[in-house]
Structure formats: C-alpha cells, structure tokens
C-alpha cells in the first residue's frame, strides 16, 4: 500500500492504544470536582506513594450517566438522595464492613440509612448544612430570623438560591412548615412550589458552585442566600462579614454524601479499601472541618474535635432540621421538573 494508507493505519493504532491509558493506575475514583485534595487521603499516599486517578463530575446525574454508559471506576461519591436510584440501576454494590478499619466509629445514622438486605452501600464521608447565609454588614440582622425574607419585595434581585433541586425544595418545605419531606403530600408539594415561585421573583442568579456564590456575595450584589455552610466558613476566612444562620424560626437543612462501591470496577478492591480507610482517619476529619467547614462521617473523630465542630456550624441546634434523606422517586422527579419550570419563570 502507499504511504498515506500506512500513516492512517499508524494513527489508528495510536488512537486505539491511548484509550487504554485511562485505567492503568490501581485505583480510579469518580468524584465531585475539588475532592481530589490529597489532605483527605494522606494515608493512601503514604502507603502507595501516589494519588489515585480521579475522574471528576460537577453533578450527580452526570456521574450516574457515565457509570451507566459503562465507565469503569472503583469508587464514587453520591449523596444520600442518589443512592437508592444508583443501587436500583445496579451501578453500585455493597461494601464489606470488615475491611473498613474504623467501621464502628462511623456516624451510625448515616451508615445504617443505607443498609439494604444485601449489605451496606454507603460509607458516610462528608456532610453539611444548607442555611440562610447573609452579609451581616449589609442587612438588618433582625430580618434574618425568618426564611420569609426570601419573599420580601425589597430584596428583588438581591438573593440567590442554589441550582440544586434538593436544597431548593428543602428551603421551600421548611418555609411552608414541613421539616420531613418523606411525609410530603401532593398538597405540601404544591404549597412548597408556590412559595418557591414567589421566591424566584427575588433571585438574581441560581448559584452552581461555592465559588460563584462567593463572587455574588463578595460584590455585595447578593445580600443573602440559601447556601452550604462552606460559604460562611471560606468567606469569613477571606475577611467578609458573612454569617450562616442555622436557626431562623423555620429552621435549616442538612445533607450527607459518602463513598460507594462501583459494580463495574476497574481494579482489585484492596486499594479501594485503603482509600476509604485513609479518608476515615481523624486527620482527614480535622482537615475537612477546619478548611472546608463540612462535617465528617467519622463521628468519633468529630467528637474529639469538639470546639472546631461548633465553630464550623455543625453542632446541635434548637430549630427544625430538614434532613435530605431519600424520598419516593416519583415525587423527586416531579420536584425536578417543577423546579426547572420555576427557574424558567413559569
């Protein structure tokens, strides 16, 4: 054959071999963007000398589609709402608790929440709160005692809500007086949607990640928001007078995420357990609480941190708390559809 044909053949060979390179390391973790922070798993690096291979996602549905399309990974990082669906779709499988060193120290409620007939599906890793977060230097603190402030016409164009259906509906259910969404009736759902539709009138932008919200609040354009507690921690560290109020009369919400064992695994499981054991070390918990403002799945390590936990806004509170536990998937799909309508102005 002529040289052009040879060159084409050579290109084909190069293309087909380069596809293999994605999975040559001993551990592939499909994780939220920014979670490839080595301080979370120093123990793993000490043992194996190198970082695992990370594949990042910005949103759980993206990760889910990727796994269903056959992406090979060892571990992934869903939040509580997604676990039942991922399990039903068969993309994740149970862990063997005997291989997790600090199993008994893990947060019992979160750990047991995902115990099914065939075993434990989630190792609780990180949790946090979603709260009314405001610029204390720009608003009257007295007004920040109720979630109804999101409807005040005075703040048109000055508020922000997360572009996240669970957080948004947690806010709406709390504001309409419901703190357990597993008990939500159709009527509750309608009331919450109507509330959210009114709150939409004041929203400047729906924030997608913490950095975007920090920009919106840092410029003073957004005065208060429904935000993860990370925002108050990181913005205060940057010198802004930002306060996270977990105790308005209607309350606040909390959520948790963890590591799940991917069915279509890329490698031997030993390294996956090493990674989880490294994550569950007390030093990882300390880093997560102090630098990220989130709670850690190892409750024994959290208890040792004491003061730090309260400062990060993770202690006990005296207001209603809506926990973002899994709900009926039909209701959740309705929530997703309705939230998109509301955001588009319908």
């Amino acid at each position, binding site marked *: 054959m002529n040289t052009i*044909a040879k060159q*084409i053949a050579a290109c084909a060979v190069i293309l087909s071999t380069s596809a293999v390179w994605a999975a040559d390391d001993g551990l592939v973790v499909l994780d939220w963007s920014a979670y490839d922070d080595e301080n979370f798993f120093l123990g793993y690096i000490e043992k194996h000398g190198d970082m695992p291979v990370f594949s990042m996602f910005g*949103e759980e*549905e*993206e990760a889910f*589609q990727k796994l269903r399309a056959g992406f090979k990974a060892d571990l992934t990082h869903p939040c509580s709402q997604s676990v039942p*669906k991922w399990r*039903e*779709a068969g993309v994740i499988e149970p862990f063997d608790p005997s291989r997790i060193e600090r199993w008994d120290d893990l947060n019992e409620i979160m750990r047991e929440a995902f115990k099914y007939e065939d075993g434990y599906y989630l190792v609780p890793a990180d949790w946090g709160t979603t709260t009314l977060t405001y610029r204390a230097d720009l608003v009257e603190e007295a007004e920040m005692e109720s979630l109804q402030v999101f409807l005040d016409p005075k703040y048109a*164009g000055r508020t922000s809500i997360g572009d996240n*259906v669970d957080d948004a509906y947690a806010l709406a259910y709390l504001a309409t007086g419901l703190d357990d969404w597993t008990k939500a009736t159709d009527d509750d759902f309608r009331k919450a949607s109507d509330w959210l539709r009114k709150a*939409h009138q004041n*929203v*400047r*932008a*729906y924030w*997608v990640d913490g950095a975007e919200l920090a*920009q919106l609040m840092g*410029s*003073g*354009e957004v005065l208060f928001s429904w935000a993860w507690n990370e925002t108050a921690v990181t913005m205060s560290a940057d010198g802004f007078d930002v306060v996270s109020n977990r105790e308005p009369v209607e309350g606040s919400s909390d959520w948790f995420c963890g590591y799940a064992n991917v069915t279509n695994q890329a490698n031997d499981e030993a390294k996956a357990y090493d990674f989880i054991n490294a994550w569950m070390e007390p030093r990882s918990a300390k880093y997560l609480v102090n630098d990220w403002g989130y709670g850690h799945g190892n409750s024994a390590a959290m208890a040792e941190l004491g003061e730090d936990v309260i400062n990060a806004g993770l202690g006990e509170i005296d207001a209603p708390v809506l926990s973002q536990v899994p709900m009926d*998937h039909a209701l959740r*799909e309705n929530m*997703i*559809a309705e939230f*998109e*309508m509301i*955001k*588009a*102005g*319908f």
Partner: protein
Amino acid sequence: MFAASEFSRWRRTEGFKGLALVSPPFLYALAMLAAPLAAVVLFSFWTQDYLTLDRTPTWNNYRTAWSETIYQVLMLRSLKISALVTAATVLLSFPIAYYVSFYIDPRRKTLWIFLITIPFWTSYLMRIFLWKVILGYNGVVNGSLMGLGLIEEPLTFILYNQNAVILTLSHAWAPFAILPIFVALERIDRSLLEAAEDLGDGPLRRFFRVTLPLAMPGVLAASVIVFIPTIGDYVTPRLVGGPNGLLIANMIELQFKKANNAPLGSALAISAMLIVAVISVVFLWLNRRYIRSRG
C-alpha cells in the same frame, strides 16, 4: 483469476484512487456524526420510565416538545436571541472587514487578520468570565460610571439576563463573521468601483449599489455561520444568562442529565435542528432571489 485481474485493473483507475482518498474521512464522518445523530433520532421516539427505556415507537415526546408552553417560550427566546446576535455580529463586523479590505496596505492585511484571531488564543470560558468581570455589580462598567458620577446605584440590567447573553455571544463570534465578509470584499474587482464613480455615483450610492451587493455572499455566509451555532449554545446563557436568560439548549442538557429524560431531550434537539434548518433554507432562498434580481 479473472476476478483478481479485474480487481487489479480497477485498482489502477482514477475512480479507485478517488474512493480510497475519500473513504477514511467518509467513514469517520459516518461513525462520529451520522451514527450519533441516528441514535438521537431513535431515542426521540422512545420513552423513559425511571431507569428503563420503553422502546415502543411513539410521537409523545414530539407532542410534548411542541405543545408545552415552556418549550415554546424557550425555543422562541433562543430564536430571538440568535437573530439579535447574528444582526449585531454582522453589523459590527462589516465595518472592520471593510476597513481591512479597503484601507489597509495589502502587505499588512495578513497581519491584521492574524490580529483579529487573537481573542481565540484564550479559552472561551475565560472570555465569558472576563465579561462577567466587566459587566458585574462592581465590575468595570459600573465602577467607571459610578466613578464619573453618572449613576448612583450599580446597573443591574447588564448582567444575568438576555442582554448579557447577546453581548457575550456577539463578541465571541465576531471573527467568524469578519473573515467571510473580508474574503467577499477582497474578491470585488476594484475597477467596478471606479466605473461606478466615473458614471456619477457618490460614495454612499456606490456602496449600496456595487459594494454591498457584491459582498452579499460573504454577509450571508457570516449570518449562517453565526446563527446556527448560537442557537445551540448553552455555556454562555448558563454563566451570564441569570434566571430569565436560559435557552433551549439548556433545557436539552437538562433533559439528558438532571431530568433523566433523554428521549424528550432528543425530541427537543431534533425539533430545534429542524427549525434551524428551515430558517436557514428560507434565508438562502431569499438571498438567491436577491442576488438574481440584482444580477
């Protein structure tokens, strides 16, 4: 034996060489473009039921896509924004192309064209973020206007709405409009312009009667090049569009991801494609008539 010699004879023909040359790109296009497109068409006739796909063919997705208000509004909004972006881009690009073609020393034209592409050396996302910095609440525009004492409160209608989407897209697509218009202007025989002047046309009449009609193919190419991709853009509206600046492409992305309804997303995508195709064909036809009536 006979077949083999027949084959080796055929291998020496022009036809075989042409086929050999075109086959790899053709197969590549088939695998990378036609196959995914066919998959999207197939999907649009199926139904998503939580985790499973119901493969019985149905028109329901199309019915939803064409009858529900939200999709109608988003589609119309996308068309409106794309039309405005196209108009703004072409109107602003024409003077630049004209200047480069008619007033720049021919030896420096390549340099100028090269300079026009410089914004493309940075990532598109970087450019969108820079627009956020420029248009933001305490950004460059508001800071300057407040510093000059022209406004007291920062302007909020310049970011997180449809204006911001139009502005950002027009800037991003400008080079794609400048280049085809420039090429069309370059092809104009300068003696025709002299002839127009000799026959008594002033600069304005000369422009509208000679230059513009001859540059029309370039203007048209620019319009189509800008109009078609901007309808499908979803990054820009997501970042600078705010609550009311979302477009049909955002809805398509959403159906495939969060809403977990790939069939409806496919139906929306195919519908959008059809609408764009119809508009482009009408546009081409109108232009052909325009050129013919002038010719």
